[in-house]
Structure formats: structure tokens, C-alpha cells
């Protein structure tokens, strides 16, 4: 029972070619990814290995047929779009019309923050490099979730879970958690409704885009609980919970609490420790109601008849988590688990008293405070285009344009990682998962890595006719402790392969 778990996040970035609103986003996204790959990856470029993907496997126990699936769900088809693995173990690719960065697998919330922040820098670096190519264009990237005109794109979380946990338990206990956690994890949005035409400010970027409670889709009929079941690990032992109901966060505390608190609740679900039924009536409607009320006073009706605010509902989960950590670990609880609990409590307490007091920690509050300051200074109404611009520019990845980074540099937002750590994480893999093996192989034997994926590295060795696949099915093997010395010692891919297979 802790915040430790194999997990990661993937973020699709909004993209715009400056001065050319009609530019093809797939082309622009490819330019961004290719520019970064060409500049940073030595020698040949390893392909993504699609062999073990199964995007149509449903956690409820069946496969959707390819004939009835929406083409956007067939993420295992190699469409020839740019798709590379970085030396830090991350995946950088074009997802339909967006450049996307998936962090490598990590095991702590702080490491999610670190490798997610590294992704922002990779994106910035990539756009700068794309602009420097002959005929290169100025491309702006945004770490947000909507264009405010009806389109939404995702920021997904992945958590490895015990296969033995009944999926119905996950749905039952996570739905109210997701409906309420946006008061912590929302990144704030100007405009109400999918097309943003409604006037006002809301807590979450994504909540207006959810239409059903449970389902496999991610691009249409978006579900609060996604059932994609593609563990990239031993399916007998694990499932991968794919969470699509979160916002892309820039604030480090928002990301940290998003994955930290979710990891705690998942641990409780696995242990059968959520002893109260916190089910809310009409979760899809409730998700929107919570988002549409930045005062956080909206009362949700629970199925047991109680009426609670989203903050109070989060407090119920916090109490259960505190008790469960005490019962299971007592004095042996690790520092990061205790830190997540303490921060979670502190944030919820202050959200209940005065939401604006969280402006230095949470994205939606930081954005709201800035917008309110502009409204007060310039007398702006909520439908003023300048406020929509501030919303968009908050998430610009360019340091000179990003309003979030401006707040950080002014010392107004709390940081959990340092610039030096982020810079290192752009190139170095986390030491304690299989991403270490993947990243180091890319760094050291790039010439002879033909392809790689979450669960394999495929070598093309001199003098051998067929490609040689090294499976990495267990996410907790291939760590620095496990293979660091071996990788240091083997000068060639051939030597490594021989050592691993003899």
C-alpha cells in the first residue's frame, strides 16, 4: 500500500503553424518528431515494434472486432508516421494529428513529474529544430486539451494493476474518485461546453468531453473509465489501467498529486480496502457540474443519499487512504507515500476554505487567479478574447511565451524537481524499470537496434540473417541494478546479446 507502482503518462500536444491556420497538422507533427529524431538519435533510427499491441482488447473480457472498431482505435497499425524511442526510454510519435510524448515507465509520482517535464522540453527542442530545417516553419505547441472549438485531445495516465482485481471494483471505486479529483488535477479552461461557446471559467479542460461511464473508445463517446486492456506485461499477472479523464498539467504539484493520489486509491481497490460506497448519481453529469463551479460549492448526490462537495468526496478517499497506509505500513511507510498524503490533505483543506489560496500549486487556480487579475485591472468580461488567449498561452511550451513558465520564473509556483534534473531526464532513463534497458540500448547500440517497444528490444546483429528479439515483459526487470553492470561491460550489441542469451 503505497504510491509506488509501475506507471506513466502520455500527452498529446496541441499544434499550430504560425500564420497558417489551415496547415496540415499531421505534416507539422511529423516535422516536429522527425526534426528531434534526426538531431538527437545517432546512426539508424529504431522503429516502433507493433508486434505485441492489442488496442481492441477490452478489460471486460473480450476483443472488439477490427471491422466494427473506429479507425482511430487501430493504434497498432504502422501508418508510416514518425515514431521513435528516445534514449530516456520515452516514445515520441505522431498520433493522428498531434505530436505525442509518452514517458518511460517509472515507479514514483515524483518520477512521473520529472519525465513528464522532460517531455515538455523535448517538445520545445523539437519545435525549435523543426523551424531550423530548410523551409522550416514556426510551430507552436501547447500542453493543453482543447482548441476551444469542439476538438479535444488527451493526456492519458497508465497504471499497472493486479490482474486478480475484479474490473467491476475498479469501476465502482474509481468513478466517484475521478468525478471529484478534478478540483486538484484540473488545468482550468475559459469557455463552457465542448465548443467553448458558453461564457465563463471551468476547473477542467476535459470534463465537457466525456459522454459515457465505461467504454473502450478514446476519441468518441469518451468514457470516465476506459476499458482498454493492453498491459505490455504478463497479462496473467497484470492489467494496465488506461485513464483518459485527466487534464494535461503543467503545475508540478498538480501532476504529482494526480498520479500519487490515483496510485493510492488503486492500491486500496486492489486490497479491497475501499470500505464505503461513494457512488455518485449520474457521474457524467456530475463530472461537468464539478468542473463548471470554480467556487467548489456544488453538492453531488451520492447513491446513499448523502450530499457532498467534490472536495468533501476527495476527503473521504483521503481518510480511507490514510487509515489504510497506517494499518498496512505504520511506521514503515515510505517518504513519498507520506508526502502525497500530507500534501493531499493540505490541498483539500485549503480548497475548502479558500480555493484561490492554491494559486502557487494547482494549474486551474493559477490560471483563474491570473485571469481574475486581468479582469480586475482591465475590466474584462469572461467572453473577452484576451482571456481566451491567456488560457491558451498559459500552456505554450516556448519559455518566452509560456505564461505558466513566467509564473514559475517569478517564484509564484512551487517546484518539485530542478531544471538540471529535467535536462538530464531528457536523455537518461529512469534507473528502476525496464525503461533503463531500453534507453541504454538506444544510447549505446543505436546502430544495431532495429526496433523497440514497451516490451521488447529488437537487435539487427552483424552476420545474422534474422532479427533478434529480447523480450522485456517484466517492467521491473532490466533496471540499472539488474543490467547496469552488464551494459557498462558490453562494448557491442553482439556481446550484450550473447551475454543475455547464453
Amino acid at each position, binding site marked *: 500500500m503505497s504510491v509506488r507502482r509501475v506507471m506513466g503518462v502520455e500527452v498529446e500536444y496541441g499544434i*499550430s503553424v504560425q500564420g497558417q491556420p489551415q496547415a496540415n497538422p499531421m505534416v507539422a507533427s511529423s516535422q516536429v518528431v522527425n526534426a528531434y529524431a534526426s538531431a538527437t538519435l545517432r546512426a539508424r533510427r529504431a522503429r516502433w515494434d507493433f508486434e505485441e499491441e492489442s488496442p481492441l482488447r477490452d478489460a471486460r473480457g473480450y476483443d472488439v472486432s477490427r471491422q466494427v472498431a473506429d479507425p482511430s482505435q487501430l493504434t497498432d497499425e504502422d501508418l508510416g508516421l514518425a515514431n521513435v524511442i528516445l534514449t530516456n526510454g520515452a516514445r515520441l510519435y505522431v498520433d493522428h494529428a498531434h505530436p505525442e510524448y509518452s514517458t518511460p515507465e517509472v515507479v514514483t509520482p515524483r518520477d512521473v513529474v520529472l519525465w513528464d517535464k522532460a517531455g515538455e522540453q523535448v517538445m520545445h527542442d523539437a519545435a525549435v529544430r523543426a523551424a531550423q530545417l530548410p523551409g522550416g516553419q514556426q510551430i507552436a505547441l501547447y500542453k493543453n486539451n482543447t482548441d476551444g472549438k469542439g476538438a479535444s485531445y488527451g493526456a492519458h495516465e497508465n497504471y499497472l494493476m493486479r490482474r486478480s482485481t475484479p474490473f467491476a471494483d475498479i469501476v465502482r471505486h474509481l468513478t466517484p474518485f475521478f468525478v471529484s479529483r478534478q478540483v486538484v488535477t484540473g488545468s482550468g479552461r475559459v469557455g463552457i461546453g465542448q465548443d467553448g461557446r458558453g461564457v465563463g471559467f471551468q476547473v477542467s479542460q476535459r470534463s465537457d468531453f466525456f459522454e459515457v461511464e465505461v467504454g473502450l473508445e478514446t476519441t468518441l463517446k469518451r468514457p470516465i473509465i476506459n476499458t482498454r486492456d493492453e498491459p505490455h506485461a504478463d497479462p496473467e499477472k497484470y492489467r494496465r489501467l488506461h485513464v483518459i479523464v485527466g487534464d494535461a498539467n503543467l503545475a508540478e504539484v498538480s501532476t504529482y498529486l494526480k498520479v500519487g493520489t490515483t496510485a493510492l486509491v488503486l492500491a486500496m481497490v486492489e486490497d479491497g480496502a475501499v470500505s464505503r460506497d461513494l457512488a455518485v448519481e449520474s457521474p457524467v453529469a456530475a463530472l461537468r457540474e464539478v468542473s463548471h463551479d470554480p467556487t467548489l460549492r456544488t453538492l453531488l448526490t451520492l447513491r446513499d443519499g448523502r450530499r457532498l462537495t467534490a472536495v468533501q468526496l476527495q476527503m473521504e478517499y483521503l481518510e480511507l487512504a490514510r487509515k489504510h497506509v497506517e494499518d498496512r505500513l505504520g511506521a514503515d511507510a515510505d517518504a513519498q507515500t507520506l508526502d502525497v498524503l500530507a500534501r493531499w*490533505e493540505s490541498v483539500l483543506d485549503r480548497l475548502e476554505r479558500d480555493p484561490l489560496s492554491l494559486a502557487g500549486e494547482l494549474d486551474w487556480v493559477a490560471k483563474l487567479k491570473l485571469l481574475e487579475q486581468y479582469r480586475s485591472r482591465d475590466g474584462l468580461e469572461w467572453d473577452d478574447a484576451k482571456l481566451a488567449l491567456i488560457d491558451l498561452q498559459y500552456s505554450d511550451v516556448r519559455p518566452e511565451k509560456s505564461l505558466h513558465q513566467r509564473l514559475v520564473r517569478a517564484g509564484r509556483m512551487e517546484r518539485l524537481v530542478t531544471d538540471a534534473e529535467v535536462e538530464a531526464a531528457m536523455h537518461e532513463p529512469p534507473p528502476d524499470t525496464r525503461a533503463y534497458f531500453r534507453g541504454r540500448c538506444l544510447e549505446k547500440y543505436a546502430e544495431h537496434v532495429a526496433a523497440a517497444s514497451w516490451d521488447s528490444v529488437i537487435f539487427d546483429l552483424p552476420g545474422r540473417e534474422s532479427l533478434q528479439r529480447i523480450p522485456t515483459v517484466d517492467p521491473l526487470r532490466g533496471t540499472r541494478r539488474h543490467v547496469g553492470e552488464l551494459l557498462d561491460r558490453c562494448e557491442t550489441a553482439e556481446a550484450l546479446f550473447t551475454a543475455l542469451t547464453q
Partner: protein
Amino acid sequence: MAQEQKQPRKSTESEEATEVAPESDVAERKEALDDDVDSLLDEIDDVLETNAEDFVKSFIQKGGE
């Protein structure tokens, strides 16, 4: 556990409780704060795209996920 029986707090009460401070202090701090905010907004004005309406309109996305 200390907060097991915690009642939802009424936010109006606790706001009053936290805002008690000598009046002159409050005025001084408010002035300092206002200056601080103004300089931040001035700084942000410098980096905001110039034509907000056109800029926001020209940001259009398709597809994804």
C-alpha cells in the same frame, strides 16, 4: 485518526477567522501586493500575442488520441 469525524467547514466562517489582522498592516500589504501584481501583468502584457482575437481563432485542431 484525527480527522475521522471532521465536519464540513463553512467556508464563510473560516474566511473571517483567517482574515483578522490589524487594519494598517492589511492596507500596506495590499498596496505592496497590488504593485507586485501590476508588474507581473505588465510583464505578461509584453509576451501576449498582439491580436488576441485572430490568434485564438486561428488555433484549430483535428483528430487525436
